[in-house]
């Protein structure tokens, strides 16, 4: 691993090139964040802004979440009849699969998206880093060549941590790190695809129903219902979410635990056959609920029951829009 800087330069050049050739109107990428060891989404509108772009292991967000808003009619529309912009997106494997999903669900126009496919080396999980530095905080940090993070802790110590030791769970278990449908490709080293066969999910299934329910209850009872998991998810583009619908009002707004559970069951269930396991919901959760364990169960079932993997092909119909006469019928109670 290594060479993020050269990749960063290649990325800047590629983006500048796209602007010079007038192939894009706007590029969504990452810039340096305001806290140490963070990057954040930024919107590049001209070739000279491209210098702001960064590429490193802290580029965590799924940028596809910003795409639908370019193609929606905003309430304060500037002028009707202006064609939608051509949007470039700096995409990791998971972002690119989200783009495919959005095209498939007709939220964005295929010809108006330019995917800049990055070679992804995985992204870091800040919570993991914090556990590495014994309860202190990250006072400073930068990424050095060779996949090493140099971190200054709150007490002034310098610590070197391998990126591979603090990778997010989703990256360790990532099955598709490569961008298959890139329009512009930035080459470099990337993590190897791994298929752990949903080990964590199967281990959880081994537990007794009571244990599983207890775990689910404990996790959900921490929820403060900020709905950040929903907002950070590229798949959640509904204009009105079922959680906020008033006719019918599916769930109450208060701290009634069953309401919170139904929100989570509903949100996770809506991901069936759509979730690309990018971990955006988990990262966005400010109280650190283990949403991944529950969402991946649906990913696993969709794969095992219907042989479908989201985000791989634009043509293939999503599993819940399709059916076979000989689908699994084992769960049916017969009279």
């Amino acid at each position, binding site marked *: 691993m290594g060479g993020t800087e050269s990749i960063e330069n290649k990325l800047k050049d590629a983006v500048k090139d796209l602007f010079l050739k007038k192939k894009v109107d706007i590029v969504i990428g990452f810039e340096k*964040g*305001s*806290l*140490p060891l*963070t*990057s*954040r*989404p*930024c*919107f590049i509108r001209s070739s000279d802004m491209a210098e702001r772009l960064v590429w490193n292991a802290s580029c965590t*967000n799924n940028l596809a*979440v*910003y795409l639908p808003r370019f193609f929606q009619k*905003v*309430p*304060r529309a500037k002028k009707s009849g202006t064609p939608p912009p051509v949007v470039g997106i700096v995409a990791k494997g998971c972002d690119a699969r989200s783009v495919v999903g959005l095209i498939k669900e007709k939220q964005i126009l295929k010809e108006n998206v330019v995917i800049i496919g990055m070679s992804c080396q995985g992204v870091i999980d800040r919570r993991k880093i914090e556990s590495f530095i014994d*309860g202190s*905080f*990250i*006072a*400073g940090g930068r990424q050095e060549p060779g996949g090493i993070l140099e971190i200054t802790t*709150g007490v002034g110590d310098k610590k070197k941590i391998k990126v591979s030791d603090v990778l997010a769970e989703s990256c360790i278990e990532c099955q598709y790190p490569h961008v298959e449908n890139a329009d512009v490709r930035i080459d470099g080293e990337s993590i190897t695809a791994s298929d752990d066969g949903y080990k964590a999910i199967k281990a959880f299934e081994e537990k007794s129903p009571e244990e599983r329910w207890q775990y689910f209850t404990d996790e959900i009872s921490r929820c*403060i219902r*900020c*709905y*950040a998991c*929903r*907002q*950070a998810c590229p798949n959640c583009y509904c204009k009105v979410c079922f959680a*906020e619908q008033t006719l019918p009002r599916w769930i*109450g*707004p*208060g*701290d*009634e635990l069953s309401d919170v559970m139904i929100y989570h069951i509903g949100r996770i269930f809506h991901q069936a056959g759509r979730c690309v396991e990018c971990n*955006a919901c988990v*990262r*966005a959760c*400010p*109280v*650190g609920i283990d949403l991944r364990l529950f969402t991946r169960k649906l990913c696993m079932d969709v794969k095992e029951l219907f042989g479908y993997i989201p985000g791989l092909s634009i043509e293939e119909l999503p599993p819940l829009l399709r059916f076979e006469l000989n689908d699994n019928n084992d769960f049916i109670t017969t009279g």
Partner: protein
Amino acid sequence: MLKKADINKFIAAVMNNGYKVFGPVKQEDGVSLSELKTTDDISFDYFNFILPPKRHFFPWSELLYKYKDKTIHEAPLPEDKTILLGIRPCDARSFSFLDNVFIDDKAVDPYYQNRRDNTIVISLACNQPLPSCFCTSVGGTPAGKEGTDILAYDTGDSLFFEECSERGSSFLKLYSKFFSTPDQADVQAVKDFIAKAEKQVLSVNIKNAAEKLKEKFYDSVWDKLSFRCLSCGVCTFFCPTCYCFGLYDERDRRIRVHDACMYKGFTLEASGHNPRPTQSERMRQRIMHKFLYTVENFGKIFCVGCGRCVTACPVNMDIRENIVEVIG
């Protein structure tokens, strides 16, 4: 002065007198403000609580009344005597801000007021500001006394208690047997301590922010600022001074729930019209509210600089940068 080793005895005595003590409790995912069941749970190994302590006076979801058989049964006023222990001065300051809102001359929120009257706030001066902190820029300090009854300084193996209000001093008098008189060295230690912490806090130049914001209402800067925002509302839920709430009727009861100006539904009218249709107006509302409207109404910037919104934001919207960008 109170030896840290003796704090258990002090808290046990307080609990025996019928107080519920909420303090820093070590849990799986860090230290959080929860009720102390035994005095052993307490841990001073934390920077600040993840969730803002406003939830103690102004709960996330609160029952106001129930109706049955055509009569309304109001919820009883909370009467528990409580101690909030280990609140950071920035958060303690937020209590004095919320007092302006909920204990107004014209209207008083009895639930808030009762909780406030029954609670003694013992805050703990901040010895290690985080990279996201900026309390000194908005008028606070790492050892601020606003909104707190007793301020404690952690000087290593003991705690130095300073009374900041009448209630605080009469409370401390009851328990004077636990405390020793500080000597010169201790006082000096405290002074050094404040100076050191203050130096570490990041400073943001927001001078005359209110004046400058007045002219920015129709500025296009809001569009640019808000583009990255996901409108998830984490910043408002995590803000110790955000106090907006919604009232909902549920079956047989009316409840009050925290609401967020970052949500589309916050201003949505029954007709379908939304006076704040895009994120740009919502972002403007949040920043204007904190740095302009409250200055006009209460003479205070409603931000304590705790930095929770900075760290919790999934896309790193940094209010320090935003305000500087707006006022230019």
